């Protein structure tokens, strides 16, 4: 529906088009600022070959264009409900590395305990969901097809796991670049597709050309993570005439001292990942 409403917004410019007037431009505005939050951006997956990092930083004013300043010198402990325990090493400022070769296990709840140098303690936890495996990728060429630009489109095929309650995202890596622009964000549950054969929906919005390489992952996430990404999708694609008032997205992290005025945002994502690659030929 969001796209639908965006299209509506276009219509509102109609009288303006007639007079060659502009509808939408950048503006300078002074926004309020607040005490920085701790920003948690951590991922743990089920693959031993990928390095998992927990990034800690401080939030900044919305119109501050610098990078989020890293939070150094924190003590970050990862533990699992299976008894796993590891104190993470800070390999670069604000980046805390999970031990190489670690692979999360389905059904295990993982917990991060973070103690920052300002004596605040935070906690975040999530359970590894069951894993959706990708079956195959195919490629089709679209030409003169309505809203689609001409070119190659990659399709994914798999059977959705029987039993409701699965939540999925897709990741697209185009010529070694992860496609993580606001318009790429998409998360869904299996309410409408439970146990069905997923028959080749397109992965990409922008067409591919011959010689391009693509890696596609189906990412299994928790219900809470799916809601987090859906809320974020609304927030980062929320503009135009009928923009909703901005709202906070959820977070699975919390300050262990509820009376502290130091707040936390962000997400500790525990996920299963199944990846296939293809070259457009």
């Amino acid at each position, binding site marked *: 529906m969001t796209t639908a409403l965006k299209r509506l917004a276009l219509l509102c410019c109609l009288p*303006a088009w007639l007079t060659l007037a502009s509808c939408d431009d950048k503006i300078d505005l002074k926004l309020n600022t607040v005490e920085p939050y701790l920003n948690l951006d951590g991922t743990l997956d089920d693959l031993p070959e990928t390095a998992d990092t927990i990034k800690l930083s401080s939030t900044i004013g919305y119109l501050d*264009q610098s990078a989020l300043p890293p939070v150094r010198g924190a003590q970050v402990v990862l533990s699992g409900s299976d008894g796993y325990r590891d104190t993470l090493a800070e390999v670069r400022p604000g980046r805390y590395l999970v031990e190489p070769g670690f692979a999360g296990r389905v059904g295990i709840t993982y917990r991060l305990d973070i103690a920052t140098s300002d004596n605040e303690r935070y906690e975040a936890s999530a359970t590894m969901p069951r894993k959706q495996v990708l079956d195959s990728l195919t490629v089709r060429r679209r030409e003169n097809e309505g*809203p689609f630009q001409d070119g190659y489109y990659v399709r994914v095929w798999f059977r959705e796991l029987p039993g409701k309650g699965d939540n999925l995202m897709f990741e697209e890596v185009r010529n070694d*670049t992860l496609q993580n622009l606001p318009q790429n964000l998409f998360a869904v549950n299996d309410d409408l597709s439970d146990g069905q054969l997923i028959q080749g929906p397109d992965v990409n919005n922008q067409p591919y050309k011959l010689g391009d390489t693509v890696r596609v992952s189906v990412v299994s996430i928790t219900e809470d993570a799916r809601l*987090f990404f859906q809320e974020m999708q609304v927030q980062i694609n929320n503009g135009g005439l009928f923009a909703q*008032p901005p709202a906070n997205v959820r977070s699975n992290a919390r300050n262990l001292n509820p009376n502290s005025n130091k707040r936390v945002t962000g997400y500790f994502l525990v996920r299963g990942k199944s990846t296939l690659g293809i070259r457009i030929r």
Partner: protein
Amino acid sequence: MPAASCGGQPKTVPGVPMGEGYIMKLFYAWGLAVWLCLAVCGVAVAQRTADARYTLSGYIRDSASAEALLGATVYVQELKSGTTANNYGFYSLTLPAGRYTVVFSYIGFSSRTLTVDLQRNTVLNPELGQEGLQVQEVVVSAARQEREESVKSVQMSLQKMSAREIKAIPPLLGEVDLVRAVQLLPGVSTVGEGASGFNVRGGLVDHNLILLDEAPVYNSSHLLGIFSIFNPDAVRDVKLFKGGIPAAYGGRLASLLDVRMKEGNARRFTGSGGVGTIMSRFALEGPIAKDKASFVVAGRRSYIDVLARPFLTGGFKGSTFYFYDLSGKVNWKIDDRNTVFLSGYFGQDNYGIGNLFGFGYGNATGTLRWNHVFSQRLFANATLIRSNYNYLLRSNVPAQEFEWTSNIKTWQAKYDLTHYLNPDLTLSYGASSILYTFVPGTAKTFGSSLFNNFFLPDQRAFEHAAYVAAEQKIGGLTIQAGLRASLFDYLGNRDTLYTYTREPGQRGTVAVADPGYLDGYRSQARYWNPEPRLALAYTLNERSSVKASYMRTAQYIHLISNTTAVTPFDVWAPTTRNVKPQLQDQVSAGYFRNLGPEADYELSAEVYYKWLHNQIDYVDGAQLLLNRRLEGELLSGRGKAYGLELYLKKNTGRLTGWVSYTLSRSLRQVEGINFGRWYSAKFDRPHNLVIVGSYQLNDKWTFGTTFTYITGTPTTLPVAKGSVGGYIYPIVEGRNNVRIPDYHRLDFSATHKRPKRGRFQGEWVFTIYNAYARRNAFGVYAEPGRTFDTQGTTEMRRIAIFGSVVPGVTYNFNF
């Protein structure tokens, strides 16, 4: 002030059918009793005769068309007192026997002075002629009585506009518009350029009761708010009550916009119309039976789509965007005692991008009225009303095909009586019943859609009201006191009954679902509210008066919208067990003065203060569309609004117009929102300055200008940004925490009258809107970078509806 607890608490425990039936019966019995009582009272009063006093009554009409002149004034020189005609042109004065000089006047018409030797009850139906359209050099005292009405009448917080005054304001794109004109009045603002509707004294758009010939209009906008649905060729006049709303009206908190359609010329056929930049209009009126029955029909259609068609290529090919409306009215004067009116409106907006996506919305209203003069001193009006608002959203996008419809339908019956006891005492009373059907949303899917069909169950409700009001003059003091009692009966269906639990400010979660399976519609919650209305006016001298008023209003249906401007897709929702009726108490006081020998200037200063109870607000990130658990997204809080309105109007001479300045605030407080602190409502705009001027150079040329300045709207914008997975998202604290830039705009118009050829008169209207091309922000939103080059950056973007000068030209004609 009394807290929100006054009046409504649900009177029934749901799922107790025994009590249910009993109360229903009692209730209907009450309804019947009220109606019977009114009828009996009416007849009884009608039969009583006064001793040594006689009644002068009749209809005041336009001599050219035989149309009634609503609100025309009747002034008895010997008594220095008088009355005004009601909304149907009927007046009644009961005076001691004697010889009187009676002056009948109406704005824009030459007044008529008649000598009456009142030795028995007398019916006098005077006809007034329009002022010579050519002669404006010195406008004679024709409408002086009428102008003095603002000082003399007990009514305050009222703005009247005639079609002629509305037409003098420089119009956008050459198209005269009633709601845009109303937005220039003191105490009135909007949330943004071209936003749908208007805000009165810190109230929401849905706090306005908009009546088109008595029928409620649920969405007054065309083109998403840039124009309104009222065709100026079909409108007779318009009144905006910002306070002191008569007890006969209720159901909305803030204001009453009473739009009356023309009756149609009962003497000869006339027509009018226009060809403009974006739309064309045509209206025709004339007699069906001379002096007995007449009609008016008027239609408009926009044609941007036709003009733009050649430029639409690619995905935009096949796009549609147009609106049209049809208004019509027939009236039949059966005899001196009975008149029947039938009026209707039908309008629709249709838009679509290519063949992929489309939407449409529209209103349909119908009013059947019967005016009956029981006696010279008792006037009755029976009305049957139908009003419907619907919208449709359609997607043909592969895999996302759906068609989504929603509507609100109402039936209403009303019976109003006015009893003119003597010149100093008028009594009015009546009753009204409304049946609502809400269809919040039905989504049907088709083609290759991945979605399932989806619907929300209908909801129904009754809204009943009875009122009595009296106006008494005691020397220089006039007192108008009224009491309205309203009763709302929510009829729930299965699937609409949930009980919610919630943390303050958070989304409610369902604690109890479907407490009992209900196959039909049964009363689930009932609220009643007494709505006292009181107005006092004290005439200091011939030229000045002070007035004060208090009113309580109750509102039982709510427009659910959390965007800056309301959209055609917002749905109306009833009061239920979870949503309480909104209530408002308003006090206002004012000073009114006329200046100049012919009341050339009107000056008024009013202050008001409002207490608002059970105001609806929304949880952060509220999901308002197609949500079965909508009530979980709604919060309840309180509000206050206060302000000062200054208004100076020049009525006579070559230069006419007004200056208005409003200083006001509108605040809300909701538990759990904005840390529980008071915050600005989204239409809180402290400073509002309007200058409207019209200068008649000669018989051919008239020039107009408008300047408006208004504080920018408050809006919620991020206070920080967070980042996960390379995505930058906003962090929000507080509600409406930043103001967007102030709004100001200057417009010009020039009207050139062509020489008359026979009966045909044409004129060209040239307009320049937004003359210094200010990009007034309609809204501001936060936008993260959308390309790899800009990933991680953030900016604020401004939406301006008109980013440049908007010229327009229209050719109008009448014959």
